């Protein structure tokens, strides 16, 4: 049942209302993402470099579709405060992947690496995952992440990534989806990767620490294990971790809205 009470706080954090899984009701806002400005030109260039989408969508169309998504949110009183937080627009290529893990390894993580290295030639992106992702990942039930994959099967997808489920356990992030507006889905691997291609500095902070970002829209074949992006100093990393369904001040997940 969609909610009518506030969905997001004044900083864009999705309020952990009505969930049983662990999430912090209050936050001291210690692990933060600085709200970056969106440079559509640079973002598009990197996304095109990664996914060769220029034949399907122009920079102007990209900017226009993102603007439409943001306008739809701004027009909704309950959703509007999400715009006060960090966000990253992205494009996903039209594609169908039988194996999400394999596609992450062959396409999306290399794309993040390339974009990050171009943006930060002195720093590194590293995939620390100790084992192959082949066959390891599927859509988490209840995450609505399948919406993103279904649209990818039909067309180039434009969306906006919001890392706003801060201080949620992975199960809490999934549980929260049940009462959020249907336009939102929980971010998984392709959309989060595309957000980093679009804005490689999303987790780059000099004055404080940014949160770890789970790919909560995906479930691993290993119980209580999920995959995530995380800063390590000025570097960006990808890794797996046991989460045991617990909450940490440092852990966040992301919502995605496509349009």
């Amino acid at each position, binding site marked *: 049942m969609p909610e009518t009470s506030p969905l997001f706080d004044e900083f864009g954090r999705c309020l952990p209302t009505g969930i049983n899984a662990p999430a*912090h009701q209050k936050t001291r806002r*210690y*692990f933060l993402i600085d709200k970056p400005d969106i440079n559509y030109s640079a973002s598009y260039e990197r996304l095109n470099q990664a996914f060769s989408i220029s034949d399907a969508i122009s920079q102007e169309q990209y900017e226009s579709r993102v603007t439409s998504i943001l306008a739809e949110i701004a027009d909704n009183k309950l959703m509007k405060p999400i715009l006060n937080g960090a966000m990253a627009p992205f494009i996903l290529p039209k594609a169908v992947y039988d194996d999400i893990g394999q596609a992450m390894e062959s396409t999306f993580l290399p794309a993040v690496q390339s974009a990050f290295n171009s943006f930060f030639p002195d720093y*590194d992106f590293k995939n620390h995952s100790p084992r192959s992702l082949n066959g390891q990942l599927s859509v988490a039930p209840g995450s609505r992440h399948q919406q993103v994959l279904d649209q990818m099967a039909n067309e180039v997808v434009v969306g906006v990534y919001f890392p706003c489920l801060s201080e949620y356990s992975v199960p809490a992030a999934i549980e929260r989806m049940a009462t959020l507006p249907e336009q939102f889905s929980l971010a998984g691997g392709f959309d989060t990767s595309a957000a980093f291609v679009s804005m490689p500095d999303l987790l780059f902070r000099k004055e404080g*620490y940014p949160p*770890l970002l789970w790919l909560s829209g995906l479930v691993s074949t290993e119980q209580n294990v999920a995959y995530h992006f995380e800063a390590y100093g000025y570097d960006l990393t990808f890794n797996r*971790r046991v989460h*045991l369904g617990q909450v940490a001040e440092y*852990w966040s997940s992301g919502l995605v809205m496509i349009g």
Partner: protein
Amino acid sequence: MLNLAVEQSDSVLSADELAKREGLRARKPYVAEKLANIHAMEGRGEISPIIRLEKSYLCNFQCTHCSAEYYMDRHMEKVLHVKDERKKIDLDDIRKLSKEADELGLARFVITGGEPLVMRDLDEVVAAIDPEKHYVILDTNGWFLDDEKAKHLKEIGVEKIQLSLDSFIEEDHDNFRNKKGSYKRVMRAIDAALDAGLNLILSTVLVKGRAKTEEFLEMCQYCTDKNVGLYVSYAKPTGSCTEHPEFVIEKEDADVLRQLEKDYNVFTHMTPSYGSHKGCITVKGIITVTSTGEVTPCPYIDFSIGNLFETSLKEVLDRGMRNPWLGPHRPDCLIGEDPKFIKIHTEKTAGATHLPLPWGEGFSDNDSLTD
């Protein structure tokens, strides 16, 4: 035959580290097996903290940044004019701790202090820990670590030495340590430890701004050339360092160091190691057992999570992992970088005569990040 956990963990080891572990496996198969299992334990979300054992705080040095100074009799008696009447751990308590730790799969003890090499019962302490069951490491300032002592330590079962070197500039190290000649003794101790076949790491304190200095880079290079790890500990606003807030690092210092890890054999307690990405290691990667049986979650946090005279090690660890400051994964150093926790710690320990503050006075089950 190696089990799967051993094969998996060894697959990411350097050739040098692999050779060391194979050597240990030949000499102490039980210890080697436990060490190899840590990888699998962490993979399941279990913890395997190193146990730092502070049986005695006797020390021949009086260092500017010492985290243990306020635990020492000399400080309590001469500065605070109090006597520590609390019950102290003895060899039987250490044997019990060793057994409890072993039953939990814990594999590593660090004998620290104070200066372990001035302890009259050091050999008995090593035996009580049981080097056939645990990997035994010894912290030292190196003053007494000559060839004879190093060989003796190896003979009694010590595997590794952590040797303090606070500057690659002789005069600065001696000044920091308030002990003339200490730099030369460290250099002697490096050779003595390596010649005796002991594993060795150097440990050094990072004060604000040091990561960018020529001196620090030279020390990193020296350790890399020598194939010796350089363990870097951030200066924390506790112990003697309480009087030197200017030493406390900023995030930039930590980030500069993270970049240096790529080029040099240098690391901190939070550096990813062989597939382990713990971040802050409070409880998860380290605990300290003080001379009064108190367990602290980190060498620099003066709040106890329980006393082993009253509570089992397992319950103390579970209690620590339940605590919102200590259990959850985080990338920064709680006592070295989190301003809110530093403030709480400073306020609660101010004026305290007997450290650490017992469970319930520092940490408790009512702790909250946001109150």
